[in-house]
């Protein structure tokens, strides 16, 4: 879009001429003094060397149009002249314009604070510091939030009536059952890709049969549950943040508090519990799908019979292989639910903050899940299982 300078292109441009009248200097304004010509008017006035005199006249007789911006510019000129010790009188044919200038003078408007920009290095340091403090504050608050969830859980265990059963089931369906197709598809594909690549490499040693071990161990121990957790963090963690965040924005959370409802108990606990219950189940489905994908590739590429595949599969498993995967699921679920709800509760005022918190929730959720997985790996390695 072109930046137009006014509704009528043929309006006379603003100008100011300085003349020495009878004794007092006269600033003769002429042309259009409106916001659409403000740039020009401002430039002309800034370039004008204001006279030093005891008296000065601002003459608006030749002005064709004047709006608040024009009136402000005239008033600004008056103030500058006055600062140099001049007594200013207006010569103006239009009473309304004078009253407009007087109205603006009575407001004592100050220019709004110009935005100050420190240099880039200082800004970078400032942002670094702010984010370090932010991480510390965030971690401390998240710990407090964890405590609140366990407190609510404790109360729900003591008196199960406090558990919002309908809400729990609803979220189990949304976060769990509804996620089955996507989790299944994803694991199936990753399983078959792993088998395919593995078979190719292992064939060099004539050890194609160990493709089954590769898929079985990697899926049951790590990949199945990790993929599922990442998918759920993206799918449900973000949904939790957006749901709770928009409720926070519309003061629904505050309304709950004053009605004596505990938002942790009503909103957070059912969501977190739903994830903790459903994620092991989804992880199990991911394991199945991965093995199915691997099995189909083994049959097509390696010519294995289903019975041989199952035998090899059974032989590859240790006592703990399956459980190592599944044990991690409730922990991942708790972390994802915690972060999703916590970020939702941190939403403030604006619509923009809902978006920012939702992004944050997904990024943090996935990151924390991967860190937790690394911890588990070290722990299981130390335990020797």
């Amino acid at each position, binding site marked *: 879009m072109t930046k137009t300078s006014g509704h009528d292109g043929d309006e006379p441009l603003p100008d100011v001429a300085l003349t020495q009248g009878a004794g007092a200097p006269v600033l003769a304004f002429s042309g259009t003094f*409106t916001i659409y010509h403000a*740039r020009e008017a401002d430039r002309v006035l800034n370039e004008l060397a204001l006279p030093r005199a005891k008296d000065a006249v601002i003459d608006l007789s030749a002005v064709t149009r004047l*709006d608040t911006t024009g009136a*402000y510019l005239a008033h600004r000129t008056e103030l500058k002249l006055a600062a140099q010790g001049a007594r200013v009188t207006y010569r103006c044919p239009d009473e*309304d314009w004078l009253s407009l200038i007087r*109205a603006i003078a009575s407001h*004592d408007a100050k*220019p709004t604070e110009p935005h100050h920009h420190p240099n880039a290095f200082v800004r970078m340091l400032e942002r670094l510091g702010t984010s370090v403090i932010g991480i510390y504050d965030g971690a401390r608050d998240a710990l407090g939030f964890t405590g609140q969830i366990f407190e609510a859980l404790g109360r729900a265990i003591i008196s199960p009536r406090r558990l919002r059963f309908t809400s729990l089931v609803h979220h189990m369906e949304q976060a769990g059952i509804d996620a089955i197709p996507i989790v299944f598809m994803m694991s199936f594909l990753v399983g078959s890709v792993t088998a395919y690549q593995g078979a190719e490499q292992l064939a060099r040693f004539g050890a194609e049969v160990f493709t089954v071990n590769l898929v079985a161990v990697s899926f049951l121990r790590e990949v199945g549950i990790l993929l599922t957790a990442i998918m759920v963090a993206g799918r449900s963690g973000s949904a939790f943040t957006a749901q709770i965040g928009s409720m926070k924005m519309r003061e629904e959370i505050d309304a709950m508090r004053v009605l004596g409802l505990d938002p942790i108990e009503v909103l957070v606990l059912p969501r977190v519990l739903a994830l903790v219950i459903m994620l092991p189940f989804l992880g199990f489905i991911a394991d199945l799908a991965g093995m199915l994908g691997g099995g189909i590739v083994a049959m097509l590429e390696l010519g294995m019979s289903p019975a041989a595949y199952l035998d090899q599969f059974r032989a590859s498993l240790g006592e703990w292989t399956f459980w190592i995967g599944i044990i991690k699921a409730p922990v991942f679920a708790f972390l994802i639910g915690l972060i999703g709800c916590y970020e939702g509760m941190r939403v403030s005022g*604006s*619509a923009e903050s809902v978006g920012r918190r939702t992004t944050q929730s997904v990024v943090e959720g996935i990151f924390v899940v991967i860190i937790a997985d690394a911890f588990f790996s070290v722990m299981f390695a130390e335990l020797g299982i």
Partner: protein
Amino acid sequence: MSGDVIISIRGLKNQFGAQVVHENLDLDVYRGEVLGVVGGSGTGKSVLLRTIVGLNHARQGTIEVFGKVLDDIPVRERRAIEKRWGVLFQDGALFSSLTVTQNVQAPLREHLDLPQRLMDEIAGLKIALAGLPASAGPKFPSELSGGMRKRAALARALALDPEILFLDEPTAGLDPIGAAAFDELISRLKQTLGLTVFLVTHDLDTLHATCDRIAVLAERKVLAIGTISQLMTHRHPWIQEYFHGPRARAAEAAWGEAPQGSKEP
């Protein structure tokens, strides 16, 4: 008041689903007047406002603003007309990610090419004209009270020095002192800037304090239009109820016999 018609609506029809909101609605707004629009809930006061400024498409009828039929003119000409009016929405509708100053400067930035320092000066002026302290400038809308948000929104509506100001329930949700100050502000702006004001309101005090004429919306059209004293003698039961109910009596007592176009209590 001159007979210069600035907004002219003829045969307007608005319909949502099966519900007809307006039918055969005619209305003229004169240059330099404050026109109050009243009516019961659901009579389409806000819809009328939204239709004039083009946020809602009418089923039938023509709307003429500044002598141009809005539906007939090319987009570029329409944009030019849009710069000549300002709209104050019910909840302010300030951009929540911008400060008050940036909100006021948003239309300046879009339509004009001004140096930053001058824009800061103009924003400061509009903020002061709207009755806000200069300290409100760097604040975000979420940090302001409801009344201050309305004033900030008014400052934004005044940014381009509009000729027509559309106000949707400007005093709703304000305390009586804040509401009275807002009424006074509108009257003063109208006088000093020569604004034409299209004012949707429920507030009887606002009607008494600011309006030159009042249009009553009922039965899908403008049922009656005139000064307060003219409407008081109107025989329609709703208008009788409206201007003679207990609240109306209180407002009337406060404003005396309300001569037409009265400004001073």
